[in-house]
């Protein structure tokens, strides 16, 4: 073997191991994050952490019950706004649309998807907070709902399109009208996929902080109804993390662990579900 060939083989082996190292570093970040959060957060996780309101400023202890419920309410609101629009628009794109309009709608959805979340916050602020003249759960729900639309739209459309043509033809041959075919055959056939799309969209917006800062704002007490400022997990984590109190830092870790646990579990389950569906279809 000539020296040149040995050199080339050496370079090849070396560079390929460098790429392996890159992959290893990238992947290990997740485990570092998880481990560090679990280490710092688990110590502050008590039962009372989930059931109590925040303690008055300066006192130690207290919980984040209002933030957990608040996040739940915000997600419910966002689903109320986001799911119908995203799903029905997806049905339109998959079943009815001509090419130009479909292109425009898809393009707009991709554009919405790329809008920085803080800009979504400004948008919700201008259309809900300014007319109402106060921060509210409603405004937060609108901000998150608008963010959900493009995610649900694009993935639902794919799942609707992947329903086999034979199913539609079978239904129509039995005399069903087009919308009955869609409602009774196409959507049920794609329902598993649509459900995972909705769950992934919820998991994505559940961790969003920026659009909530000046829409839902935050609240150290229970929020009554939908018209008051409301606490949410991500905003609590943010406020506690930048605060000067050690006890609040500990609670930020614990809240972070709760949030990350929820988001990652949802992601994990839906992705596993998707994979199982994909293998079943094959």
């Amino acid at each position, binding site marked *: 073997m000539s020296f040149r060939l040995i050199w080339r083989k050496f370079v*090849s082996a070396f560079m*390929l191991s460098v790429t392996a190292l890159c*992959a290893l570093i990238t992947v290990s970040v997740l485990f570092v994050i998880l481990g560090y959060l679990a280490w710092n957060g688990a110590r502050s996780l008590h039962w009372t952490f989930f059931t109590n309101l925040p303690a008055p400023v300066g006192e130690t202890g207290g919980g984040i019950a209002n933030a957990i419920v608040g996040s739940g309410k915000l997600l419910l609101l966002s689903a109320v706004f986001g799911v119908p*629009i995203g799903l029905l628009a997806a049905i339109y794109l998959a079943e*009815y649309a001509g090419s130009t*309009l479909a292109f425009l709608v898809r393009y707009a959805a991709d554009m919405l998807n790329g809008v920085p979340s803080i800009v979504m916050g400004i948008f919700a602020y*201008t259309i809900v907070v300014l007319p109402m003249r106060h921060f509210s759960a409603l405004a937060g729900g609108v901000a998150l709902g608008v963010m959900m639309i493009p995610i649900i739209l694009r993935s639902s459309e794919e799942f609707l399109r992947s329903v086999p043509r034979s199913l539609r033809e079978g239904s129509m041959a039995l005399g069903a009208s087009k*919308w009955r*075919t869609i409602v009774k055959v196409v959507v049920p056939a794609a329902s598993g996929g649509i459900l995972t799309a909705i769950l992934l969209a919820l998991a994505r917006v559940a961790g969003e902080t*920026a659009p909530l800062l000046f829409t839902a704002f935050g609240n150290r007490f229970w929020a009554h109804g939908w018209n008051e400022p409301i606490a949410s997990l991500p905003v609590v984590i943010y406020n506690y993390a930048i605060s000067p109190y050690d006890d609040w830092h500990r609670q930020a870790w614990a809240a972070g662990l709760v949030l990350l646990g929820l988001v990652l579990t949802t992601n994990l389950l839906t992705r596993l579900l998707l994979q199982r569906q994909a293998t079943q279809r094959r």
Partner: protein
Amino acid sequence: MAATSTTVGPAGIDWRPQAILRRLRSGDEIAHIVTLIFGLSILAITAMLVYQLWIHSAPSRAKFGFNFFVTSVWDPVFDNFGALPFIYGTLITTAVALVLAVPLGLGAAIFLSELAPPKISAGLSFVIDLLAAVPSVIYGLLAIFTLIPLLRVTIEPALKHYLGFIPLFRGPAYGIGFLAAGLVLAIMIVPYIVSVSREVLLAVPADQREAALGLGCTRWETTWKVVVPFARTGIMGSIFLSMARALGETMAVTMVIGGTPQISSSLFAPGYSIAAVIADQFTEATGTLYLSALVELGLVLFLITFILNGIARIMIIATQKRGGGVAA
């Protein structure tokens, strides 16, 4: 496409009153119109977003005009606003993030697409997708309590000691600042670079690799001189995409950048980014002009990410089409 078989084109629609009535009764027309309205609502929301940003930034645009982008004064007391420090902060943190994340992400993508056995590649990609799902406030939380002390005590003094002859690495080590924000951004955008680059690399047809290997190239030469150049446009697309993410990223940057509207040649200095200043000051913006200046910053951010996303999408689609075309 499955849908086209059942869709009657506009030309095929029967517009006679009886026919319309019949379709209305069977519900088809109603379903069509309802879904059409929801489809159009996406366009309406997008248009409204642009419109709201435009009208609410009007006072600021009228008062400062183009000077807004080249002035570095940010004085809420005297209602004098210039965006230069924020634009600078956004660009410099994004640049730091890209310098660190692109080699790492590209390396990982090459490993996943070219070297790793399919099962391992799928497993690792799964983990990387999960990483992309971690909320940004969590990155910020970790950065405040781990990265900042590490930077202040260890990394920044070391950089100053060894690379202090470069202006970038001079000045007091605060921990918080451009470097911290850039580092966090880098960690956050790597998953995007990896997953998109991996996809475009996998779209490179196998015969390209086989031809290069058949000519006696080593595995690395095949990858670096044939596969990567083939996928170059798509990889650039993935970089643009992650750049758009980095520019618009808010929480993690807000938590570590330091919140000081200044332009400094040192990466160690605290600064501000467009997204961070909006997050920090929006709720306390009292005057109309103050608020509209912040909205104008939002508009700038929106336009930049919009353009970058558009370019990225075209590039990625172009590569995937090219790969598919050759393979077929």
